[in-house]
């Protein structure tokens, strides 16, 4: 993705509330990879997936006025995610006939449709979203921890190596490796839960 997800200026500008602004940045960080991956899995080329992804965000940004008008419905975060999720899932449902003719008008129509029920598409996309949340959370946690702690966690929890082996490689005690692994896992859960609860 773009190294630092930035947003179209006009959209940023419309988000006068700085909390909303943060929410948008976070939203883009989570949804951009999720949408991209989902679209690629549906067989789209890289460039097409990117174009389409942009279209989704433009469509969502166009609806921000609606959000401003209906603030009582909950947090901006939650609203953003609902809208985007519906949009993507509905698009995926209709993707067979719409593939690359994905225009602004259609987007509006799609978004207006009833919220996506549980369907294969929604289950798939929710998986991608959760993955994206994990990825983002891990980035946050990694920056909090020392490289050694992170490496100990990664080698044991993700790569499945034994604490003893990792301890030797990193020059620390096996106990320290175990503590590092658990510490990161616990912190990761905290961050993931926070990100999820906001949606």
């Amino acid at each position, binding site marked *: *993705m*773009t*190294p630092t*997800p*930035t*947003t*179209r*200026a*006009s*959209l*940023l*500008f419309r*988000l006068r509330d*700085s909390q909303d*602004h943060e929410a948008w940045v976070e939203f*883009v960080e989570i949804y*951009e*990879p999720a949408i*991209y*991956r989902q679209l*690629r*899995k549906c067989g789209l*080329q*890289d*460039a*097409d997936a*990117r*174009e389409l*992804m*942009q*279209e989704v*965000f*433009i469509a969502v*940004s166009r609806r921000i006025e609606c959000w401003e008008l209906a603030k009582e419905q909950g947090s901006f975060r939650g609203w953003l995610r609902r809208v985007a999720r519906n949009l993507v899932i509905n698009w995926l449902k209709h993707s067979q006939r719409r593939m690359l003719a994905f225009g*602004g008008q259609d987007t509006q129509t799609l978004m207006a449709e009833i919220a996506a029920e549980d369907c294969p598409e929604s289950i798939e996309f929710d998986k991608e979203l*959760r*993955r994206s949340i*994990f*990825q983002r959370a*891990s980035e946050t946690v990694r920056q909090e921890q020392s490289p050694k702690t992170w490496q100990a966690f990664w080698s044991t*929890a*993700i790569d*499945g190596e034994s604490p003893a082996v990792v301890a030797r490689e990193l020059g620390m*005690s*096996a*106990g*320290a490796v*175990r*503590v590092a*692994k*658990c*510490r990161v*896992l*616990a*912190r*990761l*859960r905290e961050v993931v839960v926070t990100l999820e609860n906001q949606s």
Partner: protein
Amino acid sequence: MNDVCSIELLTKAVANRLTADEETALYDHLERCDACCARMEQLAGGQHWQQEAATLLVKDDLDAEVSEASRWSDVDFSVEHLEPSDDANVLGQLGGYDVLAVIGRGGMGIVLKAFDRELKRVVAIKLLSPHLAHSSMARKRFAREAQATAAVVNPHVIAIHHVQPTGRLPFLIMPLLAGETLAQRLKSRAPLELTEVLRIGMQIASGLAAADDQGLVHRDVKPANIFLEKGIERVVITDFGLARAADDVSMTRMGVVAGTPEYMSPEQARGEALDGRSDLFSLGCVLYEMATGVSPFRSESTLATLRRIVDEKPAAVASLAPELPPWFSYIVERLLSKAPAQRFASARDVSQLLEACLSHLQQPTSVPLPASLVSRAAERRSFFNSARKGKLTMLGTCGIVLLGMVMWQATDPPDISGKWTSDEWGTVVLNAKEPGQYEGTYTGAEEAQPANDDGSNASAIQPGNLRLQWSATERRFKGNWGTGEAPKGMISLRLYDKEIRGAWSTPDDLPKDTSPRKLMDLSWKRSGVTSNDLEVVHDNEMKNGQKSSHKKASPETNAFRKLFESIAASPPNPSPLPVKLFRDCFPRKSNDGTTDSPDANASFLLQSIEQIRRHELPDGMMVYELTVDPLSFFQEVCLLATGDKSIAEEILDGLLRDPVGPRIDARQVLRNQLGNQVKLTCQFHGDREFDYMVEIALVDEAAFVPNFQRFFESEEGVLANDTKDLYVVTPPSGPTNQGRGFFGATVRNHRLYWGSLKMVDPVRNGRRILE
């Protein structure tokens, strides 16, 4: 160390709240206690959680593609996208070009330095980023941009030699420019000189005008996209990467701020449709930054920048760079108007305007400031807001030379309310309406005064009313007199202690036979006070300027005044020198139609002289010391010299404004206005308020130099020592001013000497006659 299993300790361990000792002990304990290891894993989320994390955190191929752009390197690029070359010095080949280096990488493309084997020249290749190359949309856009840019043929827009829209990687060929970007230059030395600012700005505007002709909006005019070519200093706008036909708004890329926020126009920030005037706003930002060294809307975040662009007025140019002329601030501020309609109409207009300003700066004598700016500049005067105190005194040697000594005195709007009397006007009653604003009545002459030699009394003043308004710029009251709701006669006056002096004119629309005199002086005394009450001061000793601040009229004052007045009243007789001098030097220029005669000029100039005193020098030479209100005096001089009030004000403004550095602009403006008829120069030394030199007149005396030197030497040695610059300037010779010379001298301690002479043999320009 204890070896106890403790849930509490484990909880603290997971939450990273152990002390260093506890931490070490726990490591040790965990080596031996599998149960605690399992408990700790449970506390950290358990097996299920760990599995999910492991699954979701593992990177796959798609992740690699997602971050492809950021991992991309020159080597990868060469290996993947270039044909191998037999030359070891090149990275590879692309479409017949030897690629020498990767110069840069942007959102859409990559720029390469390459050698064109056929034409034997080094070129720049811009190609679509590989990750976009398989999107037909991106290809179309790339090709369209290239073709649109190629259609703009202008020395200030980057040329496109060739466009290759097909093939594996579409690319275009541009000339490789040597030099630096404006951003680089600003980083190394900002702010830039005004001439350089104008030169660069003019060329940018010219390039934008050419793009505008093709319906192309650049959208990203910023210092990094302005290239300054080495040597010839040509300015080239590069990177129309974001430019596209103005009607094609639909393809704005999401996730990329289209345009650099700092230089974006408000309409761009709002995501509205754009036209060429959006680029003009950006140009305004660039001019602002070049001239002041800071960009107008810079903020700590993108969002804050956008808000400032839309909502806030940037700090005034003059507040950051007070030395810049007001007309420049006007141009920049107009470009930075929030509403496109309030900016200039087109880039071409701006280019022409900046070009005219540049020629004016470079050749002030032959090229005037564009007319549209002259009045704007005058509107923006700020000088009179500053409260200055001081007093100006002048010395003149009658018959030979006039010498002036300057001190400084500022005047607040004086109170002139009350009752005044004069022979011609009868009783005048003035009432203050608002500060500086008066209304009044007058009873008119009680008995007809013969105004002319023929004894006619046609100009006797009838009862009527007056309206007066304080003019801050001229330091006097101006207004109208006459009968009815809208009196038509003009009047101009100033308070001198217990006397009001000034001039008035009869309305032009009066029948000729009833107004034989066009302009006359007036003198009103405080009711009940006669001229006999005025304190008479006579100084035979020449003292320091500081001492000469008498308020009352001396006999010399009256004598000098009479001299002036007599000449003013009888135009055909130009013999006495001082008035002849003013009259000869300042050509008739019709401005408002009422004060354009030499007599009127002399008369108005006289008004700015508060007091005249005579001193005798050791060799018998007479020196007259004039006490003047400096502002009004300079104002008069400038006004008389230029015949244009706004220019006169600009000169004054430039001369007298906050003294930060030398202001040569005023002199240039003046020179420019007067052209070959230079009769007045003002020089500002930037030290403090009053190191000026003003040369205003000519006097008929060939032997002035020895006398002048003697005069300085005679001044108790003080003045001579203080003199730091004395020189003679001759104006261009011609039938009327051949042989005339001017001299001026500047002295430290805020004192000014000025004068003039007529030389038998013209003295060359700038020759020093005294060190």
